[in-house]
Structures are given as structure tokens and as C-alpha cells.
């Protein structure tokens, strides 16, 4: 089937070709593995970001509840504050830049 005419050069050429192919396959697989790892990292980061955003929105809401007018009013009352007596309210007219 194979002739004896296969000389060293041919065998060397075949070996080099085989090595080249193996190298290309390795590069392909390595690149694929790196891409897969990066994709997985990205997916994980996107999901973490979504969780953090959830927490942010939730905490922002809690903060707003604590700063609501009703809550502030109750806290002010607890601290002994009461409604303003208008007779004790004095208005100061501050002149503008033109003296008006």
C-alpha cells in the first residue's frame, strides 16, 4: 500500500503538518476555554450586579420611608417640637443684587 519511496523529508513534513494541526486544535480549544471562563465570569457579575441593584433599591426605599413627612413629624414631636406660632414668625426681606 505504501511504497518504500517515503523518504525522511516526507515523514518530517507529515510530522510537522501533524504538529501544526495539533497546535491549531490546541489554540482553538484554549481560546474556547478562555472565552467560556470569561462568559461565566460575566454572567456571574451580571447576576451579582442585579442582586446589588435589588439591595440598592430596597435600601433607598427604607431611607425614603425614614425621611417621610409623617416619620419626620413624629420624630420632631418626640423631640418636643410643636407647630410654629405665626405671631412669632418674622419675615426678613433680603435685598437682591440690584438692591431691590
Amino acid at each position: 500500500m505504501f511504497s518504500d519511496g517515503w523518504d525522511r523529508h516526507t515523514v518530517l513534513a507529515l510530522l510537522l503538518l501533524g504538529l501544526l494541526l495539533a497546535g491549531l486544535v490546541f489554540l482553538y480549544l484554549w481560546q474556547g476555554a478562555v472565552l467560556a471562563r470569561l462568559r461565566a465570569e460575566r454572567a456571574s457579575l451580571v447576576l451579582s450586579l442585579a442582586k446589588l441593584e435589588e439591595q440598592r433599591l430596597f435600601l433607598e426605599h427604607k431611607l425614603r420611608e425614614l425621611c417621610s413627612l409623617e416619620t419626620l413629624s413624629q420624630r420632631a414631636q418626640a423631640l418636643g417640637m410643636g407647630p410654629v406660632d405665626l405671631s412669632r414668625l418674622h419675615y426678613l426681606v433680603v435685598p437682591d443684587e440690584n438692591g431691590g
Partner: protein
Amino acid sequence: MRTAVRRASLVFFLLALAGLAILARLFQLQVFEHREWAAMAQAIQEDRIEIPSRRGTIYDRNGVPLAYDIPAYSIAVDNYHLTNPELLVNLLVKELGMSSEEAKAKVYRPGYFTWLARNVDLDVAQRFRALAQAQRIKGLLFFPTWKRAYPQGSMALEVLGLVGVDGDGLSGLELAFDEVLRGKPRIIRILRAGDGTPYDLWEEDPGTPGQDLHLTLDSRIQWICEAELDETLRNSPADRGCAVVLDPRSGEVLALAQSPRYDPQNPAIELLKPWAVTDVFEPGSTFKGLVALAAWDLGVVSETEQFEGSSPRIVAGVAIKNAHNRSYPPLTLRDALAQSVNTVLVQVAQRVGAPKLYEYLRRLGLGELTGIELPGEVAGLLRPPEKWTEVDLAVSSFGQSVGVTAIQLAAAYAALCNDGIRIRPHLLPGKPEVRGTVAQPSSCQKIREFLGYAVNTGTGSPAKVPGFNVGGKSGTAQIAIPGRGYVPGHVTTAMAAFFPWDSPQYTIVVIYQTSKTDDFWSGTTAVPSVGRIVRAMASIGLVYPPEITGLGRSG
């Protein structure tokens, strides 16, 4: 050597054959049967997650959020794959506050899917999940979702409305603007490894978030009104109260408050109705200001003319009385308004006549929808003049035989404040929408002056706030119940006011109703409420006395 080459060739040939067989199989799997296998792999490895879009936020005029979506979780169970059901029952009772019976009914229900709880707060859901994992409970499903939150508590809930568990607007502005507020869900796909670790994620559909809604309401004025109504309900026999504050120049609704209000912690569905818009009442003597406007604009009364103030006055055989059947010496229209003398206003209405009075009342927007952007608004009751009897004309002068909503009364007084130009009251910002001209500016100015006098010296004096020139007209009226007529103990008190009367910036209407006693008067309920609302607005710097407003900042 030759034998060795032959053997090597044979091995190479066999290996090549095996390689070809593998290639052929790969070709079959990846080319011919690609679709089936890809679908199978997708079903095993891929999650398709539909994340409901975040509903638009509702803001007040200053950008204070009144209603928005916060993240939440809906929790379900796959009953067939559930482990440790008895622990799950305990967890539901302890963490989600379920009764033991309810928890057992859900947990032991045969089925692949049972909702355990919808729209659970994020912190509660996270704790629940951690505890379930620690107790090795398997078969639970957690779905991210949104939950409507109200950072200002129950403030203006009847205006804002509610959203159902599926994110649909059910009432109020949430219902009226459901299409605007709702968005399109976002769809993502996650590729997972065998242990569930995600190793790829992509967006199939970015979705669209709902659009925000900016209102004309001012949360500070809204809060002031609600606090005032709550306080009056605590200290009087009033069953309920409502307050409307308008900017008469633009028609912007700055507050639309009521008490009692819907409480998300203790829901009573009937309180979701903004009754300032949906319920009709007889306006009582607050109507006198509008009748006087028609008369002045037609020129059938003058400033110095004196009217007879004796009580009762007989009209078509019916005795019409003043409050407490009190008689007055002859008095001018200004004094009659200040003292709220029914028998004088009857004479004024008779001079105007039914057709003209009806025409003015229609121009003021009574008997028709104001067009405020809230569902369920009613048009009130204003019969055509051909159906009015002499008595109807007479009693309409002090607000009987007609029915108005609080928003109608506020809009009508806003027209008086806006020199006769009626503007549609609105909750969404925009250009003022003129609905017609009611009367001449000079007539409006004169009636405002009379009503300023009424607050300075007359029945409206509990609304007086020194330096703020409040004007307005109070009213107390029995409530007519369909089929029963005027029922003892059922009373409406009202105050329609504005300030400063010479160039009004605010129109305020306050209404209270009771079903407990006849001893219920505007002078001790609605009128002082207006005064306290103005004081509160002044005390937090929302408004300034007119002489300061000209120089400084106005609210």
C-alpha cells in the same frame, strides 16, 4: 522493515477508519440531528427568565416620589419535589406570618406548583431563602418581581391608587394611567452548568421600563391637609373629611386629601375612593358666594342696597328660615354674605331668576365633569331651570336642591379667584386648559372683597390668618339620603376659601360630614380647618404674607 511498515500502515488505516467513524457520528449529531440535540441541551442547561418591567414612578410636583416599585420575590413550591414539608410549614408560619392551617393547605397540596406568597419584601424573602437552605428544604421556587411601595405611607393613596399582585393598576391614577406606567418585561437567558453555576447569560428582549408620572400635587400641602383632617376627625363627631387645594391661575391640584384614608396595613376598599371627586353633597351656604357673583355680574344688586333680613320668608307657601331662625335688620349683600343670611340670598336669587342662575352655574362648571384625571368622577346634580320651582330657586341660593363634588366647588371658586376664567383642575402638569369665562373680572374682584370681609368679620372668621387676607364662605347643610330625605344627625360642613383675596394664589375647599349629630357646624370644623391649613403652609415657608410675597419668594 517492510513488515513493520505494513503493520504501521494497518494501524494507521484502522485508526483513520475509527476517526472517520467518529467524524461521521459527529456529523450526524451536529448536522443532521442538530436541532433535536440543541433543543434538548437548551432545555437542560438554559433558563429563560422573564423579569417583569419596573412600573413607572409617581412623583409630586417637587420630584418627591410618592409611589414606585421595589424589588420583591414571589415564592412557590413544587409539592412533588419538596423535602422537609413540616419544616416549611413552620417557616411559613414564623417568617411570613401565615396561619398554620393556611400553610399546611399550601404545602401538602398535591401539585407541581403552588404559590406560597406573592410579592414578599426583599429582606423577608432573602431570610426565608437562607433559612430554607439551612434546613435543607428543597423544591422551593423564587421568582423576582416588583412590589409597589409608598414611601410617604398612606399619603394621597386614594389619588395614586393601588396596583394588583400582577402589576395591573386597580384604582386611581394607577388605573387611569396604567398603559403609561406599565412597561414591557425583560427576558434573559442563562446557560447553567450541571451544578447550576451560570456560565453564560444574554438578553433575549431588553424590555422597556414603565414611564414616570409627575403630578401637580405638592406632598407638603397634601400632608398638611391630611394631618388637619385627621386632627379634626379625632376632635369632632365628623365621620369623614376631604380637602382640595388648587392653584386658581393654572388649575393645578396641589392637594386632594381625605380622612380616613386607605391604609395598606389595614385595607378597607371603600376608602380607596377619592370622595372629593366621586361623591356629591349639597354645598349649603358656600353656594351663596356663587349666587352673589351671578347677581353682581348681571347688575341686579348694588353695594349699598339694603335687603330685608327677617326670618322666616315665605316663598310659594313655604317658610324659608335663617340659621336658628334669626331675623336681621335690613342689610347689604356684603353683610348678608358675612352673616350668611339665607333670606337675603333668596331675594338675590329671585332677582337673578332660574334661567340666568342656571346659566351662571353651568358656566362655573356645575352639573358637568371637571375633567380631572381620576376615574369615577361624577357630574353632580343640577337640574335644568324648567324643572325648578319657585322654592327650588329660593333654596338653591343657599345650596339646597343642587349637588356638587368638592372638586367642582373648588374649581368654581377657582374661577372666581381667576377673574372669571374657569380652568380645568388637573393632576398632571400642562398648559392651563381654559373651560370658559364665567363673569367679568370686576365682578369677581368685588365678590372676593365681600368674601374677604366675611372672613374678617363674619361667619368665616375662624379661618382668618393675620397678614394673609383669607376670603371665603362657609356652609352647613343637612344631608339628604335617597328615599329618606333630610335625615336628622346627618350634616355636611364646608368652607370654600382663597387667599390673598385681592389676588388669590390658592383656593381651598374643606368638607366634613357626620352621621352622628345635628350639633355639627362649619364654624367649628371646616372654617377653622382652613385657617390651620393656611397657618401650616405659612409656618413651613410655603406661603408668605402678600406684602412679603411681592419682594420675596412665593410658594
